[in-house]
């Protein structure tokens, strides 16, 4: 079994940035990531893009290539294709690698599981042809695959970005259906003035929308009652906008209304989490240096609150400094001196973040299902109606509801239904999600073949001999 000073799970911007700082200081650092190449979701394939015209993806994306090469040259041990499925507070990590379970130990553990898209349980969201806007990005970045004539529906910067990327690449887009409510523009206006320090990001967002409008793509603002229509696959969307009913045909519909922390790893580890009412999601509770509620376990990046790629890099560097201090490479004074710049950067991001969170605040209409038949749990096919019945039978706790209805018991382990269930129970109980709580999660964080696990002990025994 290999031992490291620090093991980082997740090679996105936070994990890579932390690894660079640590490795350069001479710390033995291991970085585990499921992907064949570092980058995370945001910089996926940025260093080896298959897209012929990669400039169309924008300069933010291209900047990832430099970070990836700095990481790859840093001397950190990169376990590519390593899927961690158990993280112990004793510093033990079990991960699948080429079909076998391997094990390593570390003194310090840094978790960077990043974010995932907020589920959008609208009618028809389980039909083939309905994907997330992030999925469109993943397919584009990793395999240069695009969908022609798709509808993009929802709200938020990522949605506008992928539409703009498609248009730059000459991929026809059927329509952008924007669900951002009119009142959010009024609510967010005061926040915008406070966010003026981040004028570059603000204008980038505005220019994306200008670019989309200039392209002639149909843009429908203030859309409500969004649903996917079709039989056994998506055939389009239906919605109401400015008082009129619309129907747009499309065989692919990309949905988006923001991202939320990807929590299964940190939940399975039993770290403290809290509810973030601005971002309407749970996040890991950490201090300024990413220290979690468990000693020697730190968290950086979007899973400790959505901060975006730049913020994640700063957070990764801060955690690294703290770990360097704990490992005896830096005094506390040195740590604080070196941390100053990133700490102020992160705090300067806050007004911008608040503006974005206010403008694109997830609406209840998209966050929670409205039709009784709409599925909340995609794996076990549990609908809003099924959950309400379970609640009426006395299951007031997410885990009790799970035991009674099987909602959240399937392979996705609640990734898709967890926040929705917490939201529904909060609504029905008249309490906030913090009180309602979340599923108890366990390893493995994804399906593990019995064959693989059955070889685990055998591998151990051989190593001992």
């Amino acid at each position, binding site marked *: 079994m290999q031992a490291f000073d620090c093991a980082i799970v997740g090679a996105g911007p936070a994990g890579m940035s932390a690894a660079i700082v640590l490795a350069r200081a001479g710390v033995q650092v291991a970085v585990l990531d499921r992907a064949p190449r570092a980058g995370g979701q945001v910089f996926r394939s940025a260093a080896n893009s298959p897209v012929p015209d990669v400039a169309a993806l924008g300069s933010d994306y291209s900047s990832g290539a430099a970070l990836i090469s700095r990481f790859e040259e840093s001397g950190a041990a990169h376990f590519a294709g390593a899927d961690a499925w*158990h993280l*112990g507070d004793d510093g033990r990590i*079990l991960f699948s690698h080429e079909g076998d379970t391997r094990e390593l130990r570390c003194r310090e553990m840094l978790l960077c599981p990043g974010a995932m898209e907020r589920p959008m349980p609208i009618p028809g969201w389980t039909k083939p042809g309905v994907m997330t806007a992030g999925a469109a990005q993943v397919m584009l970045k990793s395999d240069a695959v695009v969908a022609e004539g798709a509808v993009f529906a929802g709200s938020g910067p990522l949605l506008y970005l992928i539409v703009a990327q498609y248009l730059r690449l000459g991929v026809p887009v059927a329509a952008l259906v924007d669900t951002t409510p009119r009142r959010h523009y009024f609510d967010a206006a005061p926040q915008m003035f406070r966010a003026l320090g981040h004028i570059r990001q603000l204008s980038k967002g505005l220019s994306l929308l200008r670019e989309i409008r200039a392209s002639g793509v149909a843009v429908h603002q203030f859309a409500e009652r969004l649903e996917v229509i079709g039989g056994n696959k998506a055939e389009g969307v239906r919605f109401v906008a400015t008082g009129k009913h619309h129907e747009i045909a499309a065989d692919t519909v990309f949905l988006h209304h923001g991202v939320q922390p990807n929590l299964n790893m940190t939940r399975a580890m*039993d770290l403290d989490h809290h509810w973030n009412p601005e971002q309407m999601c749970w996040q890991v509770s950490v201090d300024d240096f990413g220290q979690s509620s468990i000693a020697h376990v730190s968290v950086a990046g979007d899973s400790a609150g959505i901060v975006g790629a730049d913020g994640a890099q700063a957070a990764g560097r801060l955690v690294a400094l703290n770990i360097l201090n704990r490992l005896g490479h830096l005094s506390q004074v040195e740590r604080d001196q070196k941390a100053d710049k990133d700490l102020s950067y992160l705090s300067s991001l806050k007004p911008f973040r608040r503006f974005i969170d206010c403008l694109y605040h997830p609406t209840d209409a998209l966050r929670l299902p409205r039709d009784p038949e709409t599925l909340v749990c995609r794996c076990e096919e549990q609908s809003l109606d099924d959950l309400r019945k379970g609640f009426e*039978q*006395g*299951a*007031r*706790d997410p*885990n*009790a509801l799970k*035991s*009674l209805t099987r909602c959240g*018991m*399937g*392979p996705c*382990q609640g990734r898709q239904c967890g926040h929705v269930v917490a939201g529904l129970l909060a609504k029905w109980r008249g309490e906030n999600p913090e009180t309602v709580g979340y599923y108890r999660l*366990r*390893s*493995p964080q994804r*399906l*593990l*073949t*019995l*064959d693989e*696990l*059955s*070889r*685990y*002990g*055998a591998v*151990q025994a051989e190593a001992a001999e």
Partner: protein
Amino acid sequence: MKADVLVIGGGIQGCATAFHLARRGVSVIVVEKDYAGRHASGVNAGGVRLLGRDMAEVPLSKMSMEMWQSLDEELGHETGFRRQALINIAVNEVDLDTLRAREDKMRAAGYTHERIIDRTELIGRLPHVNPECVGGVISELDGYAIPYKATAAFRRAAETLGAQVIEGEEVLGLRRIGNTWLAQGRKQRYEAETVVNCAGAWADRIALMIGDNVPLSHAAPMLMITARMPHFAKPVVGAVSRQLSFKQFENGTVLIGGGAKGFADRANDRTRLDYSKLAAACRTAAEFFPIMRKASINRMWAGLEAYMPDNLPVIGPAVNAARAFHAFGFSAHGFQMGPVVGQVMADLVTGGQSRFDLSPLRIDRFDRKVL
């Protein structure tokens, strides 16, 4: 709050006790420190097993098995009970000898619900079993239920009859003043004539408050469940001399147990898993059923369970206090007994006696022994 009876612990034993008491018109409060069915009662393997019971338990277990057959109608709620034969597989002649010795003992006591089967019948009933297995023992009366559902069904039926279930309420102290038990909970105080201790892995603490010492230990038996698989095993499966136990539910998922224990952190209500032991359980499952190699494990977990030194529960009155009764320490096989235990406890509370011989299960049975 006041009631005739205060039941401590909202697991299946506590909820079944409340149901039977409420049905007799007794006012009853159940206090549960987490939520009803949170621990062993809600997360166990759901085995409704008569096969292989200790002789001291057989009469209770047989009665309970009869009750399970019509429990859904009785409670008016689904427990998920399905009658399904249970087979313990024999891998060699030594196993068969063990089974024959057991059969002689059972016959002598007048029991006929266990039957030895040969290799042909074994393969006929379990076509996917490793053909090297030589036979086994079957009980046709056995089955399984969905643990949380069954516990919730008792709870809801009890509530319908007027019982109150207070969740998130931990009992911090118990005193007997005159003819009344005073219980101090974290949230409020309770008064009752009688207390019933159904506190599972925490029952030794409640017993201590009542005045009885008990050598209870706790452990964390581990379970794994797979994603749905095509059906390959109707009967519930165990093995005579190996740590094998699994069942394929109607929905196709396969629950793998076998008794391997993880790490129990009772003070923090937590359990940890021992992956080496789970890996061994996987090897055993694949050895007996090669088709299991293709299984995908979806979840693994462990529950906190109370164990007694002789693996038999404590069922009966307190010895050092009046109007107090115990039902705990089921040592990982209490789920099946829930229905009958509820009835026995109601008998004890309302009439002071049970028609079953409870002497092997009394709480002071370890007092003179050196453990």
